[in-house]
């Protein structure tokens, strides 16, 4: 499979749009699923997916083959997702400041995301909704490690390659992510203690 990916990427580097189409079919779900896990809405995930494949088309000639094609594409996806997420968070903060001065009572209004992952089975939907709220609050590196490991279900080695970290560092991030998620679950829904 790796040989096929490299062959397609070489053709894309020569400007072949059919090769890009083939690469798109192979990777579209991975890219989109990763993006939607960060951004938690379909429009933003679609925007990131578009940007990723345009980037692939523009940068294919610069792929050096030091990593697998899959790792390279995941890395582009993570970077674009984080860029858009940071952009939206800056906008949200600015909106919060404006509301702070305009609101009569002075109480800030904070909207919690309400995201239903389309791939989760019906009986797990509510729990998954809560989980994604908690994932949204994780620090960036923990969020990335968690999404790649448990949403994308990548092997730990590939997660380490995508994040350009050691295996040990990834394991440490995952441990901290799970601890933070457990702590968040207490804060988001304290009534569930009963």
């Amino acid at each position, binding site marked *: 499979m790796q040989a096929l990916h490299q062959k397609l990427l070489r053709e894309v580097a020569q400007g072949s*749009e059919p090769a*890009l*189409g083939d690469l*798109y079919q192979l990777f*579209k*779900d*991975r890219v*989109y*699923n990763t993006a*939607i896990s960060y951004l938690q809405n*379909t429009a933003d*995930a*679609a925007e990131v*997916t*578009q940007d990723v*494949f*345009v980037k692939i*088309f*523009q940068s294919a000639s610069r792929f050096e083959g030091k990593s697998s094609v899959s790792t390279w594409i995941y890395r582009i996806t993570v970077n674009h997702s984080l860029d858009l997420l940071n952009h939206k968070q800056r906008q949200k903060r600015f909106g919060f400041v404006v509301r702070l001065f305009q609101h009569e009572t002075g109480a800030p209004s904070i909207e919690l995301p309400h995201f239903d*992952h*389309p*791939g*989760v*089975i019906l009986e*797990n939907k509510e*729990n*998954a909704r*809560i*989980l994604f709220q*908690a994932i949204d609050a994780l620090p960036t590196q923990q969020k990335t490690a968690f999404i790649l490991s*448990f*949403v*994308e279900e990548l092997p730990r080695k590939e997660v380490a390659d995508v994040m350009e970290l050691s295996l040990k560092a990834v394991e440490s991030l995952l441990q901290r992510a*799970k601890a933070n*998620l*457990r702590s968040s*679950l207490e804060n988001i829904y304290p009534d*569930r*203690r009963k």
Partner: protein
Amino acid sequence: MENRKDDILKSIEGAKRAQPDPQLYAAIQAKIAGIEHLQVVKRPYVALAAACLGLLIFANVSMLSNKDSAQKTPSVYQIEYANYSLYQ
């Protein structure tokens, strides 16, 4: 409570990957075509810049060659002076 948290943490296990809209690839193709068009449109500016430079060089060369021919033509003062040589 711990069981509840475990249930929540495990809720995405086995979930299928989300899939993008089938029309998304057409949007990607349009974006790429737009970028390539922009790169083609930029080139006429290079041609315009080259034409301006050529014009500038031509103007300078013309001015220098006019200066040379001006030195070969006798000035008005020289002609006037020449007319004063009446008593020789």
